[in-house]
Each structure stands twice: as structure tokens, then as C-alpha cells.
């Protein structure tokens, strides 16, 4: 017993040491990104991080994922961690700027920045692109399975409230996207700070809860693909990924009610440790060839026109990934809300999601 244990421990220590030895002298950058949001060499697409490490042998990328802007924000706001690159959505960029959590980008290190199309530059959330550079863009719509869902019911966001499909409907598990849907339904501004309006939205979401199967984020892929759920609101790019696996999945944008259109942008937070390396990583992601290969897999819209040359023409011509200008104009942008409003929204959403009594504090 004693001997066997010492052998086991010795083995383990050896393995541990070996894994310790592989931590070389390269600079490490922590890239904190959405899940399923970078091409990792699956399905014959490029492995963006491996490619970057190959071309920049002095940098090691530690890639970690989050499931929503709010998770990322909380992790950073709680402190105690260092992050070098993040890719939040527009409103979160705005909020991080307001709260002095981002560092200005040094464009000398990011020559590829000029390849970003002018239509995606200088957006309201960061007027001079001082802190952020677009990574991708897209829309939020309804994904449904035409095998089970009657086309006649697909009229707008109210499909997500339809009792006919009770227990087959998924819902966003983050407050901002969930509230946006209620706001579009009720005709409110999606950036409202009015407490009563938010309360109304929460009531609407509470009304929806009995028909909701689960509140989810990226678990949507498996649930929709294997038909465990039939209806879900989600991001257009991810719809294309899912539709590859299940041909019955359809995408619907409720243009008459409005929908959220978003731009996700790369930023460097103040808790960054290797700014130069982080900027090189951002520059790499703007390289048309790699941006194209990357977007080919994640299926979101690329803000770099040149990249489309490297992409599958089928994706580039897909109206879901690249909607017409008319459709795009129906979309609404998020802006950053005051922290108190965000907290209120989160607390109302918690009440809805956890089945507590919905009320203002």
C-alpha cells in the first residue's frame, strides 16, 4: 500500500513537473472571448490561435471563453484577474469606456485597422475607435424548426410567447437580450431607462416563463440541432452554424417590431499585462485572410470587405448573414445604460428567471 502510493504520487509529480516545464518563456496573453466565437480548426477551417502562435512564436495565447457580456463584465469588475483582449458587444464597449476599464489602442501596432470598412468605424459606442476595433456584426432573430412550427404562427416576437409550443421555447439567459425582445414587442425604446417601462417588460417576460423550456446561451446549438427545442431567439451567425446541422431550422427577423443589430469589437482592458502582444493579436484578426477564414466558420458578418475574398461565397451571399440595407435599417442599436439601470434590469431578470415575485425595489 505504502509503496504503491509513493509510486502513484511520484508519477503524478512527474506529470505535473512535465506540464510545468512546458510553460516556456513566451509572453502569454489572455484572450477572453465569447464561446463558439473563433475558428478552432474544426470542420476543416483554420485554427486561428494556432496560426497566430505559429506566425508569432514569442506569444502564447491563453484562450478563455464567456457566455455573455454580463458574465465577462462581472468577472472583470470583481477584479483579481488579468485580461489582454476581450471582444464585447457595442453597448458593453460603451459601458467599459464610461467606467474607465479600457485602454486606448495604439494604431501603430495595428496597421490592418484601415482595412475595416468605414461603415463599421466610428460608431456611436466609440466615436473615434479610440478603444475598440470591430470584430464582427450581426442581428438577433428567431430561429425555429419548420418541422414542428406552423409558418402561420411565425408573425413576430410573440412566437416566443405562444402556448402551443410550451416547453419547446428557449430564451436568452442574459438580461439585456431578453429585455430587448420584450421592449420590441411592447414598442418601447430598447435603451429605455424608465423604471416603469422596465417593470412592464419584466411582467411580459414573467408571462412568458411558463412556456419557456430553459434559459440558455450557447447550449442553444445542441438543443436546436437535435430538436429538443423548436423555437429560440439567437444571433444570426449562429443560426447559420446550426442550419448546417439541421436543415429544418429557419431564421426570422421581425422587421416590423424591430430587432437588435450589434457590432462586437476587440478591446484591451486596463487589467492588460502585455499590451503590445495584445495589439498584435488584434492586428492579426484584422488580416483579411485570417478574418475571412475565421468568419467562414463562425458565420457572423465581417466588417472587412477584403476578407470576403477568402470566404465561402455561399456564406457571403446569404441574406441572413449579410442582410439587405433595408433590413439592416430596421435594426436598433444598443447604447450603454447607467450602471443603476443595468443592475435594475439584471435584478428584474433574476426575479423573472428564478420565479420570484416581480417588483421594483
Amino acid at each position: 500500500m505504502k509503496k504503491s502510493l509513493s509510486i502513484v504520487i511520484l508519477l503524478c509529480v512527474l506529470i505535473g513537473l512535465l506540464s510545468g516545464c512546458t510553460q516556456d518563456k513566451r509572453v502569454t496573453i489572455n484572450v477572453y472571448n465569447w464561446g463558439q466565437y473563433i475558428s478552432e480548426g474544426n470542420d476543416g477551417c483554420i485554427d486561428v490561435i494556432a496560426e497566430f502562435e505559429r506566425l508569432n512564436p514569442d506569444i502564447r495565447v491563453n484562450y478563455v471563453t464567456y457566455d455573455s457580456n454580463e458574465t465577462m463584465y462581472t468577472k472583470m469588475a470583481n477584479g483579481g484577474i488579468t485580461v489582454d483582449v476581450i471582444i464585447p458587444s457595442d453597448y458593453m464597449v460603451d459601458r467599459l469606456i464610461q467606467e474607465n476599464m479600457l485602454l486606448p489602442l495604439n494604431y501603430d501596432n495595428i496597421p490592418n485597422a484601415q482595412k475595416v470598412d468605414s461603415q463599421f468605424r466610428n460608431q456611436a459606442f466609440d466615436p473615434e475607435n479610440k478603444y475598440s476595433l470591430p470584430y464582427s456584426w450581426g442581428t438577433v432573430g428567431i430561429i425555429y424548426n419548420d418541422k414542428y412550427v406552423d409558418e402561420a404562427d411565425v408573425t413576430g416576437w410573440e412566437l416566443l410567447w405562444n402556448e402551443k409550443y410550451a416547453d419547446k421555447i428557449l430564451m436568452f439567459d442574459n438580461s439585456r437580450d431578453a429585455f430587448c425582445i420584450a421592449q420590441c414587442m411592447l414598442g418601447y425604446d430598447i435603451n429605455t431607462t424608465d423604471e416603469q417601462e422596465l417593470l412592464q417588460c419584466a411582467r411580459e417576460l414573467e408571462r412568458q416563463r411558463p412556456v419557456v423550456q430553459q434559459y440558455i446561451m450557447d447550449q442553444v446549438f445542441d438543443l436546436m440541432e437535435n430538436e429538443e427545442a423548436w423555437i429560440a431567439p439567437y444571433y444570426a451567425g449562429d443560426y447559420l452554424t446550426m442550419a448546417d446541422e439541421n436543415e429544418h431550422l429557419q431564421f426570422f427577423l421581425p422587421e416590423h417590431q424591430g430587432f437588435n443589430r450589434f457590432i462586437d469589437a476587440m478591446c484591451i482592458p486596463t487589467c492588460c499585462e502585455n499590451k503590445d502582444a495584445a495589439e498584435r493579436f488584434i492586428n492579426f484578426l484584422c488580416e483579411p485572410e485570417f478574418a475571412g477564414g475565421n468568419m467562414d466558420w463562425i458565420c457572423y458578418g465581417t466588417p472587412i470587405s477584403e476578407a470576403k475574398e477568402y470566404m465561402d461565397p455561399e456564406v457571403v451571399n446569404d441574406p441572413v448573414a449579410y442582410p439587405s440595407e433595408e433590413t439592416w435599417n430596421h435594426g436598433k442599436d444598443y447604447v450603454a445604460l447607467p450602471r443603476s439601470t443595468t443592475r435594475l434590469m439584471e435584478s428584474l431578470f433574476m426575479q423573472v428567471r428564478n420565479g420570484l415575485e416581480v417588483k421594483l425595489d
Partner: protein
Amino acid sequence: MKKFNRVVTVLIFLFLYAPMLVLLIASFNVGKDITEFEGFTLMRYVEVFQDRSMLTMLGNSILVSVLASAIATVFGTFSAVGIYNLKPRMRKAVMSLTNIPMTNPDIVTGISLSLLFVFVGSKLLGQKESLTFWTLLIAHITFNLPYVILNVMPKLQQMNPALTDAAMDLGCTPLQSFFKVTLYEIMPGIISGAIMAFTMSLDDFVISYFVTGLDFITLPVEIYNYTKKQLEPKLYAMFIMMFLLILVLMIVMNLLQVRQDKQKKRREGR
């Protein structure tokens, strides 16, 4: 009655191992869906070794659990001897202190430690990064210590105190008598404490989940991150390999113990 118990036992073992069977089958599946078997492949096992993050995380897990359980075992054994010799009242107080992390839900332990680290590291010391490998190690040592103490303590109580006295009468210094007599007597407790600490540490998810930062992540936390995304079947292959590894380790230890018992019996028989 015995028949009934046997039937229940068989059923329970089926119940315990059915999900593992599902994972085993899923690990050979061509398709991604766990519920539908589309064809046989060994690719998933190859993928595990191609995945750079998963192996690093496994290394991280092993590193933390080996270090934490080793430190906790040494530290805990000496402390147990110290506690054992304390005044009864003091001893009782220390033992209830030991029981706190045992009875406290993991989630509370994890939260309280992470709040402490962030509070002290970031707010008081102004560190940029306060959730590191070292804080994770501290957390693991903290929840490992009680397992060691609670395993060593009964052995100390069972030990005949005359033994150490005898050793000292025969010319041992107190230190020698500790290493030659006490340590030998309490060894089974130390070993089971160490094993328990190691497995607890290796499999810990909840506490690590709250205490890790971004640069040092253990395998269970990474698996959790994976389950938040589209599931990848290589996870199942990883699971099956870990299962086999632990199974082999346990069988080897069992066989060794059987042999040891036989030797002991033979010696006693003589």
C-alpha cells in the same frame, strides 16, 4: 432478505454505471449527438491529444491536486499530533474549527475564499491579479486539511501511548520516537487521508470554479466551460480515459493491499 439486498445492490450498481455506459458509447460515436449512434470511430480519442487546452488543464489539475494534497498531508499530520496533545477543551475547539469547511457547502467556501482573495489582493494590496495559481493552491490546501486531520486523529487515539514512552526509555529522542513509532502507527490514517485529499482536489469543481482567475484553470472548470457551449464528443473520450486510469490505479492498489494482507496473515500464522 439477502436475496432482496442482492437484487437492490445489482440494480444500484446498474444505476450508478448506466450514465458511464452512455458516455462510453458516446465516445465512439461518429455523430456529435449523445442520443444517436451514427457509427464507430476512435477519432474522439485522437482529438483529445490534439486539443492543446484540454491537456494543459489536465496538467494543471494534477499539479494543483498533487501539491495541495502533499502539503496538506504533511502539514495536517504534524498538526494532528499537535492537536491531539492539546488540552481537551482546546482540542474540542480546534476540532470544531476543522469541521467548518467539512459542513459548509462548497459553494459558500468557494465564494468566501474568492471574496477574501479579491478583497485582500485587489482592495487592500492593490494587486492587479489576485486570483492566481497560488490562491487556488491555498484554497485546495484549506479544504484538504480537514480530511487529513480527520483520518489521522482516530489513529492517534487508537495508538497505545505507552509505545512512545517505551521508545524513549530505549533511548530514542522524542523526535526519533515520533518518526520511528508514532509515524509508523498512524501511517494508514495518513495514507487514506492523502488519497482522499488527492481525489477531492482532483475532482473539485465548485470551489475551484469560484476561486480561479483566467490564467490557471483546472480541468473540471474547463469541462464546465465546455458544457456551456456546443458539446464536443472528445469530452466523453477524455472522461473514459480518466475512468480507465482511475480504475487501473484502484485495482492496483487493491491487489497490493490483498497481497499485503496475505503476508501479514502469514506472518501472524507463524
